[in-house]
């Protein structure tokens, strides 16, 4: 597994080969509050980076999740269909949301490092 990288939309991305695993950060789950339902993306869907891909419904509001990189959705975390609160409990591991096959792995390198992401939260 690679070093985790982050987006300004508070997602984390981890890659293995040309597969990227995507979830939301601990900061994101804290600000969303109790997550009750996730409208997961469809496997096979092709997306461009920054396109809306799925929606997280918390008790407070609905929030869009964006594709961090271009590619195709190849797997979704079906456990979240039964218990979306896994994303609250373990956002950066068991609470992963989808995996995608990257069209251009170079895009991963352009995402934020943990340090850069944490610095962005302070602004």
């Amino acid at each position: 597994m690679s070093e985790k990288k982050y987006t300004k939309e508070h997602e984390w991305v981890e890659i293995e080969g040309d597969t990227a695993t995507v979830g939301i950060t601990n900061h994101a789950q804290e600000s969303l509050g109790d997550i009750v339902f996730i409208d997961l993306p469809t496997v096979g869907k092709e997306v461009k980076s920054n396109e809306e891909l799925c929606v997280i419904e918390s008790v407070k509001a609905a929030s869009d999740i964006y594709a961090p990189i271009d590619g195709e959705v190849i797997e979704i975390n079906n456990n979240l269909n039964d218990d979306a609160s896994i994303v609250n409990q373990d956002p950066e591991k068991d609470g992963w949301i989808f995996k995608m096959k990257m069209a251009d792995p170079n895009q991963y390198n352009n995402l934020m490092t943990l340090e850069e992401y944490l610095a962005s939260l302070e602004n």
Partner: protein
Amino acid sequence: MSDNALKKIFLNVFHRVNGAKFVPFAGYEMPINYKKGIINEHLHVREKAGIFDVSHMGQILIPASDKNISSLETYTPLNLKKIPSNKCHYSFILNKKGGIVDDIMISKININDQENIYIVYNASRKKILNEIFNNIFENYSILNNRCLIAIQGPGSHSVLNSFLDLSKTKNFLDINIIQFDNSNIYISRSGYTGEDGFEISIPNENSENFINQILKNENTLLCGLGCRDSLRVEAGLSLYGNEINEDITPIQANLSWALDKNRLEDDNLNGSSILLNQLQETKKTRKIGITPVNKTMLRNNMTLYNKEQKEIGYITSGCFSPVLKRSIGIGYINNFTNKLDKLFVNVRGDFEEVIIDNIPFVKKNYKKGG
């Protein structure tokens, strides 16, 4: 934009120290939840007892003079001379069309041997109501020097009974004045969660001590406005700005039970003839509970469609029900819709089926006849 600066309730710092997460609400910086989160706070209220600081709400005390009572009867569909003392009534301030300017809790209480009308009203309606009150009342006091604290849930009575005299608030909607820390507190057996509970109007300077006294009991938990909303939706209660507004009358909002019907014959009541007509004719819309067939979230302002995708209503309140573990909603629908008709909401482009459900979603648990 200094006019838009959020107002702070008296115990703002206390809530911050206790882990509150704040949101802007009706011009106030208010706790939406504390560390345990909305769902845990919600369930705590249903099972034990939750404490809410609702000091953003308006409180006014008005001497019950003939002139003040007659002025208020222009706006409020109750017979204020006849309502018993020490009992709260859910009522309204009405405009000339019978529309709801605000929904209020109103009671007569005796303070220093003088009969007073005590009204609690919505924070979001303070500006317009204070203008009305200023125009019609003599010698009134807006109680900015008091907090309003609610304790809600089946454990509320035993929590308060350990340090307060509750002998005169035995039943739902009883209100009385008792002593705490040598100060007068107005305590009513009421709330807006569907549970047994109390609301306490207390001088600002006594409020922190009061909450700390409650928090000594391990069955209590500070709760924010987030769960207050999901609790009231489960209980099927109306919220100003959602189910009710100036263009909706109490009859259209299924709240005609709160009207004194005799007052509808009285020209002194705003909108009386309109309300009387509405009471006699078949309603065009009705208030319903809504439950999605599949896993989806109902939200405020979603449109309701029939199977021909024609608009037939809308959702006024949609949320997640922590008790039922699914989304629930309240809304208005064309009254000629059959209870078994298929209905749909549009969730991000997909038509999701919903069904008409009964409200309340969760049985009310008020203390009556004890």
